[in-house]
């Protein structure tokens, strides 16, 4: 049998390079999984005493569930307001920059909006309670006077403006740049081919956007909103500073409600023993909420896979 000349020519050192590099890439991925697993284990261990404690010893005296569900709902409300405000505006801004603004203006404008992402949350908090909250008070009064029959706007309106709605708006401002910058990048990548196909069929600009741009960008938009949601759910300091907290109430313009992240931040410094474990259990619940929301988002993206723009 003759030897294969191709085998002898192969350099073993080169192959090693490939092995090392792919190994490193794999290791990095696994490291992330391990870290996340470690975070989960850490949360679980620290939270465990809460689940075995006498319900009377939990804050509120009625067990962990009674303690956590109002702030879970508060968290969801805050995040929902944030997304309800930031998603349409964020997508609007992204579309404005990608498809409406003159090219020369669009770049700097995008940069300006991205800047919002860089402002520390303490500053958002301070701005929220010093500037935004007082500015919203007349609006709240108007709402309670004219739409007070809706439980969401039931009066009397807060005199300081430090309400759930304000906190939600501050969160919206904080997630706006995340949604905007990601969806803008995706809108810009819409294949020219498809945009021109729509225009050539006689579509108006808006119709071109709905037929070519939005369907193409849908999975990306969902990811962008999820990233924004992540920040809205996990934001601590801004909510802690802006919200005048309290029990769960339907009205968004009165003092009340609380979010998990703010609950942790506000009480962590003075917490010890069981209280500390309770707060960490609250963190675990937040973690689970994120997990579920992400699973749902993945599901939505996967369902449309056959018709995705990715080919």
């Amino acid at each position, binding site marked *: 049998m003759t030897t294969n000349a191709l085998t002898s020519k192969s350099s073993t050192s080169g192959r090693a390079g490939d092995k090392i590099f*792919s190994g490193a890439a*794999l290791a990095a991925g696994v490291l*992330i999984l391990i870290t*996340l697993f470690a975070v989960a284990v850490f949360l679980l261990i620290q939270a465990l005493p809460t689940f075995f404690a006498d319900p009377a010893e939990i804050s509120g005296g009625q067990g962990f569930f009674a303690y956590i569900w109002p702030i879970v709902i508060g968290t969801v409300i805050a995040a929902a307001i944030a997304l309800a405000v930031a998603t349409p*505006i964020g997508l609007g801004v992204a579309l404005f920059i990608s498809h409406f603004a003159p090219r020369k203006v669009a770049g700097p404008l995008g940069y300006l909006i991205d800047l919002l992402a860089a402002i*520390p949350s303490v500053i958002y908090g301070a701005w929220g309670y010093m500037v935004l909250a007082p500015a919203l008070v007349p609006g709240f009064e108007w709402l309670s006077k004219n739409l007070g029959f809706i439980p969401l706007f039931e009066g009397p309106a807060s005199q300081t403006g430090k309400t759930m709605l304000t906190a939600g708006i501050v969160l919206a401002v904080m997630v706006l740049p995340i949604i905007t910058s990601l969806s803008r990048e995706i809108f810009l990548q819409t294949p020219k081919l498809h945009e021109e196909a729509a225009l050539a069929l006689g579509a108006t600009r808006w119709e071109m956007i709905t037929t070519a741009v939005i369907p193409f960008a849908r999975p990306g938009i969902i990811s962008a909103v999820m990233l924004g949601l992540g920040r809205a759910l996990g934001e601590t*300091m801004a909510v802690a500073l802006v919200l005048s907290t309290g029990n769960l109430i339907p009205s968004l313009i009165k003092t009340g409600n609380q979010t998990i992240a703010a609950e942790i931040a506000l009480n962590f410094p003075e917490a010890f023993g069981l209280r500390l474990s309770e707060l960490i259990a609250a963190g675990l619940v937040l*973690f689970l909420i*994120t997990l579920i929301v992400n*699973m749902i988002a993945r599901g939505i993206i996967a369902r449309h896979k056959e018709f995705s723009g990715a080919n």
Partner: protein
Amino acid sequence: MRKRNSLAKGKLPKWAIWAIAAGSIIIGAAISTLTGFSVAAFAIYSAIIFLIAASVITTVVEGKRRGKNAMWTYLIYAAFIVALIPLASVLYTVLQKGLPGINSHFLFSSMNGVTGAIDNQTVANGEPVIGGAYHAVIGTLLITLWATLISVPVGMLTAVYLVEYGQGKALSKAITFFVDVMTGIPSIVAGLFAAAFFGMILGPNARMGIVAAVALSVLMIPTVVRSTEEMLKIVPNELREASFALGVRRWRTILKVVIPTAISGIASGVTLAIARVIGETAPILVTAGIASQINMNVFANWMSTLPTFIYYQILTPTSPTNIDPSVQRAWAAALLLILMVMALNLIARLVASIFAPKKGR
């Protein structure tokens, strides 16, 4: 005269939209005056009236489709203007409150030895504020640098795994999913985790810069992975194939062809990730402590960063009786932080433009 252009049938003349705008402003002013004038109400009423009037008139004259197009166009413009309001307000607030505090003393001095008594004295004598944010700037730079050094390689390698090696594998699906979940970790939890982790290794309450950097990495990595992944995905496969076909090894192809092609997107993704964590307060408090003097060593002793500096200056002013110096320091530090991120952004753009694929003839 020629016959009328049949293609131009039923189109609103250009001036019409300006007329509608003027009309809306007048009516808006009238209504808001009736209901007790305020600038906000005036703007809101005018905008709503304009939106409705312009859409309806366009619909009537040009048809439903053009009307819809007009409505959405104005809505998108409106979204943009609405987004600018908080941006302008936040920036104005920071500038107005922060600018008076920015001077060379503030930039280049720490808070070492600055006590409430000193603040009381400067206020009483009307002297300029003493004490600055230099130590916090150093802390911010060092901690962010270390966080970047940790998360960028890990994040980029993970993205490389996902895009280049892991396609379709269960592990890569798991990583993608959990990276998304990771974006939802509240920052305080990341801090507590890092503190507990190092506590296990180095003993209780081992607070120092590197612990904070690890905490920030937990927050940064998902953003780095996400953005790098997206950017690597849009590198055309033909470039990889071209490289393979030249007999170039995979790892060299990735390092020398794929990543350079995507570098501009990656750079802005990393910048976004840095911007995301550079303003974090809660995780730093439990991992790096707080210091008033300069500490250049992330492996020993406590450290302040600009956000923790701001946080404590606002929440526990140096002198409770005279909080103005502390408030001034806090806003000046906020302004400084924003400027730092802006500079970072510019640098990233520069890097990106140097490496970016060259276009044009």
